């Protein structure tokens, strides 16, 4: 099966029902995408498929075939995506385990809604659990990323 991840084509030998999460992590060695629950409850495994946020733990790899998969490793070359810059500026991370999912969810939100209000952020980000409790800074950083992004496109 052919899988396109971060613009690179991979030949993958996996059963079609194998979740994309494990294909990424265990077969392709891309461990930035995290396992947290396996049942679409925590968002740690969030990736983009054709630009939309998806929970890779419940996405059979066959459903990603022929589509554009983006993971945290491919969000930017060097951590310079506005969301990543905002995250660094506001010192968001703690243990960091949930943050790939948080950042991917935030990037997908901003791609759709360049200037989200708190309600839109709460809605889009509520599915990504952070046990370290970085939520407050995440909210602020999404706003900051919107600002940084706006500046870039202007």
């Amino acid at each position, binding site marked *: 099966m052919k899988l396109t991840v971060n613009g690179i084509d991979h030949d993958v030998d996996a059963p079609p029902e*194998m979740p994309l999460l494990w294909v990424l992590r265990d077969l392709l060695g891309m461990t930035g995408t995290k396992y947290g629950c396996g049942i679409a409850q925590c968002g740690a495994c969030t990736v983009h498929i054709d630009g939309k946020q998806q929970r890779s733990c419940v996405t059979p790899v066959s459903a990603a075939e022929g589509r554009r998969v983006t993971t945290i490793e491919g969000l930017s070359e060097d951590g310079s995506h506005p969301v990543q810059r905002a995250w660094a500026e506001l010192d968001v991370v703690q243990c960091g*385990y949930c943050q790939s999912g948080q950042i991917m969810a935030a990037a997908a939100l901003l791609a759709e809604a360049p200037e989200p209000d708190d309600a839109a952020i709460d809605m889009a980000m509520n599915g990504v659990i952070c046990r370290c409790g970085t939520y407050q800074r995440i909210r602020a950083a999404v706003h900051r990323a919107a600002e940084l992004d706006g500046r870039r496109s202007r």
Partner: protein
Amino acid sequence: MNGHGSTRRTFLKTSVAATGGLVIAFHVPGAKRLAASGLTPAGGFAPNAFLRIGEDDTVTVLLAHSEMGQGIWTTLPMLIAEELDCDWSSIRVEHAPAAQAYAHTAFGIQATGGSTTTWSEFDRYRQAGAAARSMLVQAAAQEVGVPVSECRTGNGVVTASGRSLRYGELTAIAATLTPPESVPLRDPSEWSLIGTPTRRLDTPEKITGRAKFGIDVQLEGMLTAVVARAPSFGATLKSFDASAARAVPGVRHVVQVPSGVAVVADHSWAAIKGREILDIEWTSGPTSGVDSEELLAEWADLTRSPGVTAAERGDTADALAGAEQTIESLFFFPYLAHAAMEPLNCAVRIGPDGCDIWTGTQFQGPDQMAAAAITGLDPEQVRIHTTFLGGGFGRRANPAADFVSEAVHVAKAAGVPVKTIWTRDDDTRGGYYRPAFVHRARLGLGANGMPVAWDHDMAGQSILAGTFFEAGMPENGVDPSSVEGLVDSPYMAEVPNHRVGVHTPDPGIPVLWWRSVGHTHTAFVVETLIDQAAHAAGADPVEYRRKLLAEHPRHLGVLDLAAEKAGWGSNLSAGRARGVAVHESFGSFVAEVAEVSVSGNEIRVHRVTAAIDCGIAVNPEAIEAQIQGGIAYGLSATLHSEIHLKEGAARESNFDDYKVLRLAEMPDVDVHIVPSTDPPGGVGEPGTPPIAPAVANAVFALTGQRLTELPLKL
């Protein structure tokens, strides 16, 4: 020069050869703390290595503690850099290996927990930096031919007699010098880093997916395992048939280990699939019938009779009988899972030269001993490579070394390197919970409304009993971690007649410390009772506390600051109310004012104003983050989380039924730090205890309903 000194010089030279730089080693200060802790040190003061300076000027700081989100990846380097005068951007950070040299200065074993890292390393890491600087200065003086008094340091450079020498250039000479026994540390007035909000050094890795957690470890030839564990606590394996599991493509081995049956496969998915169709029979054990609702009901009865006395003064019965008013409350606390975002895991490779373990652990010392016992190796042959921890909260500091021991057994039985991973269900149902507790308290108030008697009995499992920490328990068998925050409460100190009795039933459920340990329940009990007393006395909750805390300046300081910043007493929009709580834990004092509303049976927390006095605030940026995080963690337990045991097993298994706080519920938390020159206290845990009572007290102010059970249910 004595033999010891030359050994150390040899060590330094060897280290230079091995690393192309300088390793600073020296004696560990902290003998007093070690003695004061009452815990037996595992072996005196070995020479230590906390930093390495490369010829390229990089300063590599080795962490004796584990980074699990609390920010010590940044705070400990700050301590070294403060004395070393290096360029902050030249700092690199690594977890230290497991070695006695990195034993905790108070506990004597290599461990991270109890909110101790900053204070326990405050001297040692500054000394490490100061010793290095002094040797670099000496090297420069030698090179330039001037006395050391004519050398100045700054930004990783020594200047002397018009010459500038980079630290990297001086490593070769410095490496030939004898490390000083101790070096005077800077006066706080000279600090430029300590007290300055400093951003995390681990951010670049953690925002790009490059940070390696235990679950990310993947070595050549390493397989992945999941373990089928007993369906109820205490059940044992009767028999299993692995033929179907073995037929799953990718499954390589199915092996029996003490905790169950491991399915070892090419990748996680195959292992999970193989386990699903594993045919196993179990024999129930003595714990297999445990029901937590029944336990709590039994313990509520138990608290009607006096437990083992943990604190006593005056004549409580008499004073209670003569009180103007009495308040009686019964409190219930469930078992709780830590539910760190990264489920447990541990990678193990056993080879002819020893055993390598990669995992995110808070307990390198005990883990190393456990692995040595299983493999028959010497502890030094067990090399622990600490990865980042995807949260710890106490679960990764297990005296029983459960997840490490099991993984070593799996690798041993399979005969190949194996990474054992736990699914979320495994992690939630795996035990080592915050123990459930029941408290029953009667408070007698005098004519002036102030408490004159406090009679208290509680029941719940001991965390320390049965572990190697048991030796540190008092003779009466009362676990200090059950009563912390209660028997040492400043309020209790002000009540002339009081008695605390403790029942310690043992239903056999594995329990463990959970962020802020005993304070998770005692703070709720104490701060609810005081709020009830204030109400009964017709007093304002803050004013009432102020009266009781008059002789406790640090409690009072945070209470006043939080109340002021929260606008205590000012008008709120309709449908909102405030509640307050103040509590000391882990050497720090925290007051929180919560602003809540209620709609239907749902409690919403809108805003929390927190004040902390943690002594010297080493990194205010990290302190703010830890208080926010500690409050979020506490809010999960306040509003949602609970483990119900049925038939000896947790009913909950994943985030759909073990609910935790989500982003939309996160209040705005303002954190205010009391300026202080007191020695540093803890920061990782003290934010957690006050939040539940602050919220419950606000709910009472709003609705008149006094909630005495967590999670709060309207």
